[in-house]
Structures are given as structure tokens and as C-alpha cells.
């Protein structure tokens, strides 16, 4: 990844009639970067991708490609390749013709065409399928042809719109690895849209979490998981969801149901609290569950359900007032109905503002 910015969105907004799809989008993508846009359906991630591709014009703001305003250059000069969710292969042409079509229309010489295509078919393991029609290919093969069609153009920027969602669950892992190794080999700039958090974390150099037409956070997968900017991001990433408790701050301690769950005077006093109410977030794997009370901060709970996922077990602990929290453990020796104690791994506790749900320490 170089330091050159190849794609830039400046204050981009998009309205359909009176709805704001994109409220304000600022984004810089570096040459060779793999950026993943992640968000729930309807968050505006696909619209952003379509604006970058030039299929839609932004309502205000500008999109710079290689430093030039994208609206002022033709789609040929823009030199962007896009892989659609349904791959958009021409059903009436063979794999070879699909790859060749755009070159042929733009009058690339036959020898040159053949040379490029042979190389790409080779790279993508498609040589054996060159004369098949798209209807005769599996989902994974179609996706590779779609990738190939982008590569043929030797585009600088690759846009991928949920390319794995039409592939059988069992084969998705393999297809994902292929995209990754292709990126590692060719170092194209990739903007990748998905709603699947595992896909995003596996692929992205950086992830932009989008909700409501705004980028909520843009950072490395690790930072997004461990230091989310707000509660939305914290809840969106991680399965099962992060536990949230409404707590009261009192003299360097956090009280939940009038019992102390967290104590760190230094950390709490460094916060600029507007009220003494706040939200505590703790991921299920950072909830410690034990049989005996060994610490002042341990609180009693009862195990409601235990789900065994093989590699780990998920406990649902019922605490007071019908509330419950989830915990992930890897060596289960509890049974449903047990009375246990739980506490939080203090350094993993996240603190959010009660009103605007922003992380108080970011």
C-alpha cells in the first residue's frame, strides 16, 4: 500500500427526492488499500459504491479519482471496475467473450487481447471453462469471471458489491481466501461492500462502518473491535452482541442495581461526565463466570441457558429485574440453572455516554 490517495470523497451527500441516503461522507482511500464498507441493509453503503462507479451522481460534494473530479471524466477515463452482487455476466456470451467484449468494443488489437485474456484465465483458474456460458458455471466460477472482467481493463480501482452473497455458505470461505490472495498478488485498490462482519474483518485493511448515511468509524479491524467510537459500532461488531448495562457513577465506582461492578477512580475521573449516568459495555468473552465469590466485585446470577457451539459455549446469565447478560467461555463445567458469580475483566470494560452513546474515552 503506497501513501498516495487514489480515491477521495469530499462532503458527499445523496438525496432521493426528500430522503437523505448519504448525509455526509468523507473518505480517503490509498493506492493498494483494501477498504471494506460495512453496515446494515439500507445504510447507504451500496449507494456510495454506485456513486464512486459513476452510476449515480452525488447531490452535493465531489468525488476525486486520482485527483480529478469524477463527474468531469468519462467512464472510460475513470477506469473503474465493478463486480456486482449478481456478477452481471452477459448470459449470451461465453466466459472468453465476456472477458473480451469491452476490449473488443474499445478496439484493442486482437493479439493484445489474446495475451491479456490468456494470462487472466490462467490466474483465475478459468482456462478449462473458457467456452462455457455463464449459465453452466457455479457461483464461485461466475464470481471469478466477474473479477476477471475487471482485471481485463487493468483498472486502478476495483469496486466489489457483496460479491460473496450469492455463493453457497460452504464455499464462501474458499472464495474469500481467493479474493484475499488476488489482492496480495496484484495490489489493486479495492473498495468492498458487505453486511457480513466476519467477511469485513477477514478482508479489510481498514473497515468503514456506515449507518444512517454516515461513516460511524473507519479504522483497522482490531481497533474497531476493541476501541469502538460509539455504541452502534460496538453492537454491530461481535457475535453475540456486546452486553450493555446502565450504570451510575459514584466516587470512582460504577454501580449497577446499587452494586459495584467496576472500580477505577483514575479512569473514571479522567472522563468529562455530563451526568453521573452512563452505559457500560462488556463483550461476552470478557465476562468472567465462577462458582464461588472470590472478589468484592463478583455479583450473583443464575445460568438460564447454555448453548454449546463446539469451540466455545455461550451462557445466558439472568441477573436482577429480568435482565440478562451473555458470557462466552471455552471450558464449560456448568449446567443450566446453576447459581454462579460473574465479574467483568476491568481493562476490557467500555464506557459510553448515556445520551449520545459515544465512547467516553475516544
Amino acid at each position, binding site marked *: 500500500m503506497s501513501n498516495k490517495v487514489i480515491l477521495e470523497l469530499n462532503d458527499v451527500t445523496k438525496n432521493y427526492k426528500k430522503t437523505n441516503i448519504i448525509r455526509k461522507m468523507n473518505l480517503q482511500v490509498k493506492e493498494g488499500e483494501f477498504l471494506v464498507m460495512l453496515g446494515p441493509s439500507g445504510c447507504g453503503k451500496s449507494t456510495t459504491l454506485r456513486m464512486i*462507479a459513476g452510476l449515480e451522481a452525488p447531490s452535493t460534494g465531489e468525488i476525486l479519482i486520482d485527483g480529478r473530479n469524477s463527474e468531469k471524466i468519462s*467512464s472510460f477515463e475513470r477506469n*473503474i471496475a465493478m463486480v*456486482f*452482487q449478481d*456478477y*452481471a455476466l*452477459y448470459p*449470451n456470451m461465453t466466459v472468453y467473450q465476456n472477458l473480451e467484449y469491452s476490449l473488443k468494443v*474499445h478496439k484493442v488489437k486482437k493479439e493484445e487481447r489474446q495475451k491479456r485474456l490468456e494470462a487472466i484465465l490462467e490466474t483465475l483458474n478459468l482456462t478449462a471453462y473458457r467456452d462455457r456460458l455463464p449459465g453452466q458455471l457455479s457461483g464461485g466460477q461466475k464470481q471469478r469471471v466477474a473479477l476477471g472482467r475487471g482485471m481485463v481493463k487493468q483498472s486502478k480501482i476495483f469496486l466489489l458489491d457483496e460479491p460473496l452473497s450469492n455463493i453457497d455458505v460452504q464455499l464462501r470461505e474458499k472464495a474469500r481466501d481467493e479474493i484475499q490472495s488476488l489482492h496480495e498478488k496484484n495490489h489493486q485498490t479495492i473498495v468492498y461492500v458487505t453486511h457480513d462482519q466476519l467477511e469485513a474483518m477477514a478482508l479489510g485493511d481498514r473497515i468503514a462502518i456506515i449507518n444512517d448515511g454516515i461513516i460511524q468509524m473507519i479504522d483497522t479491524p482490531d481497533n474497531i473491535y476493541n476501541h469502538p467510537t460509539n455504541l452502534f459500532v460496538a453492537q454491530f461488531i461481535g457475535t453475540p452482541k456486546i452486553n450493555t448495562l446502565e450504570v451510575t457513577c459514584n466516587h470512582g465506582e460504577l454501580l449497577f442495581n446499587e452494586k459495584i461492578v467496576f472500580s477505577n477512580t483514575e479512569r473514571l475521573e479522567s472522563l468529562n461526565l455530563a451526568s453521573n449516568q452512563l452505559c457500560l459495555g462488556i463483550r461476552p468473552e470478557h465476562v468472567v463466570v465462577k462458582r464461588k465469590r472470590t472478589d468484592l466485585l463478583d455479583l450473583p446470577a443464575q445460568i438460564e441457558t447454555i448453548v454449546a457451539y463446539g469451540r466455545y459455549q455461550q451462557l445466558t446469565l439472568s441477573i436482577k429485574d429480568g435482565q440478562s447478560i451473555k458470557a462466552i467461555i471455552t471450558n464449560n463445567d456448568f449446567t443450566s440453572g446453576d447459581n454462579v458469580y460473574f465479574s467483568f475483566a476491568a481493562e476490557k470494560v467500555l464506557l459510553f455516554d448515556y445520551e449520545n452513546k459515544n465512547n467516553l474515552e475516544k
Partner: protein
Amino acid sequence: MNKFRESGWHFLLIVICLTLLLPVLFMISNSFKTLQDSYHSMLQLIPTHPTFSNYLTLDKQINLFRIVWNTFFMATIVTLGKIITGLLAAYAFKYFSFKGKKFFYFAFISTIFVPFTVVMIPNFLVISKLNLLNTALGVALPQLCDATGIMLFLKAMDKIPNSLIESVRIDDIPSYKILKDIVVPILRPNIISIGAIFFINSWNEYVWPTLILKDKNSFTLPLALQNYISSEGGTNFPLAMALSTIMIIVPLLIYLIFQRYILNSISSSGLK
């Protein structure tokens, strides 16, 4: 399912089916009867004295080849015209955005509901001023474009995913190439089946050609048939039935040849 109910359905279907097909069988049967037989036992399906003579008489009385050719030529021009204009207009409506698109579409569709009887006279005046009376072109001219075609092609274009067209646009392919290389090949079965229907409708057309074609040499088959029924043929029912049988052959052939497309793309999608 209840066995009794099922056989009830069966029976009903067979009755409906026979009712629909009976006139055709009846027609073919009578075309092979002598005038006398037809008069005495019109409703008998198998002729008592089967004869081919009606067809021979017909060929002597009118220029059968000329009339079939007229019908074919006229129907072909109309079909080609409707396909070309329909495809172009549907493409524009589907993939271009322009001001007043909805209004134009609305206006187009409205014309489907204007009775032909109403536009017949103005059209006749135009054709006669263009000196195209008694020509196949005169019959074809006002029919080269119609809203039904636009509507059907627009509907057919639904099956082309949007992403396909967007993908071609990102590649900067000119519109006419998209139409030629992508849209038309994908719509091929639809074009064939819609074209077949256009052709058959035009082949069977009666009212409008009556106005334009007055010279017997320019007649199309339905006109010749009408003439046999009303005047010259007079009471010669078997002759009329023989001409009817000839008239039905081409549509039937087209239907049989393109049956696969017609059933697939227009009608049987709901059947399993």
C-alpha cells in the same frame, strides 16, 4: 385430493376443450365435402364422400398464389415494423431518463384503448392522399408502430438484470452496441414469440384491409374469404371452408414451429 372432485374437473375440462376445438374440426371436415353433402349433413364430422374438388375449384376461381403472397408480404412488413419500433421505444423508456417520460408512456398506452373504428377514417384519408390505396404498403403503414409492442418488449426487458446494463455502462459501451450485443440476444425468445403473434394477427386482419384494398389482385386471404361468404361463393359453403382451411395453415405452422418460445415466454410460466 378427493377422487370425485378430480374426475369432475376432468369432465369439465374435456367439454370446454372440445367446445373450443369443434369449430375448427367442423371447418376442415366441411372443406372435404361435396356441396350436397355439406348441405344435408353439415354437422357430420367424417365426410360421406370425401373430395378434394373444392380446393381445385378455388384455385381456378381466384389467383390463390397472388393472394397468399399479398397476405404474407403485408404481414411480414407489419411484423418487422412493430418489432423494430417497439424494441427501440422500449429500450428508450427502460434505460434512458428524459423529461416527461411518464407522460409519454402514459400517452402511448392510452392509444391501446382508442378503438380502431375511430382512427380508421383519418388513417384512410392519409393513405389515400399518399396514393397507397390497393397496396400492401398502404395496409402496413399505420401499423408499423404500436403501443402493445412497446408494452410487451418493456415487460420482457424486466428479465434483464439492471446490473447487466450498469456493468456495460461502466465499460463505456455505446447504446446501440448494448442494444445489439446484449439486449437483443437476451430477448431473442421474446422477440420471436411476440413477432409470431404480430404476424398471425396481421395475417388474420380483416377490417382495415377492406378499406384499403379494393382491387381483387391486391386482396389478402381474409378479404377473399369474406367475398366467398357474401357474394360470389354465395351458398357454396364447402368452398368457403376450403379457403378457411388454407388461411389457417400458415398461423398453425408458425405456432407449431415457435411453440416452444410462445408457450415459454408468453403463457405457460405459471404451469408446472
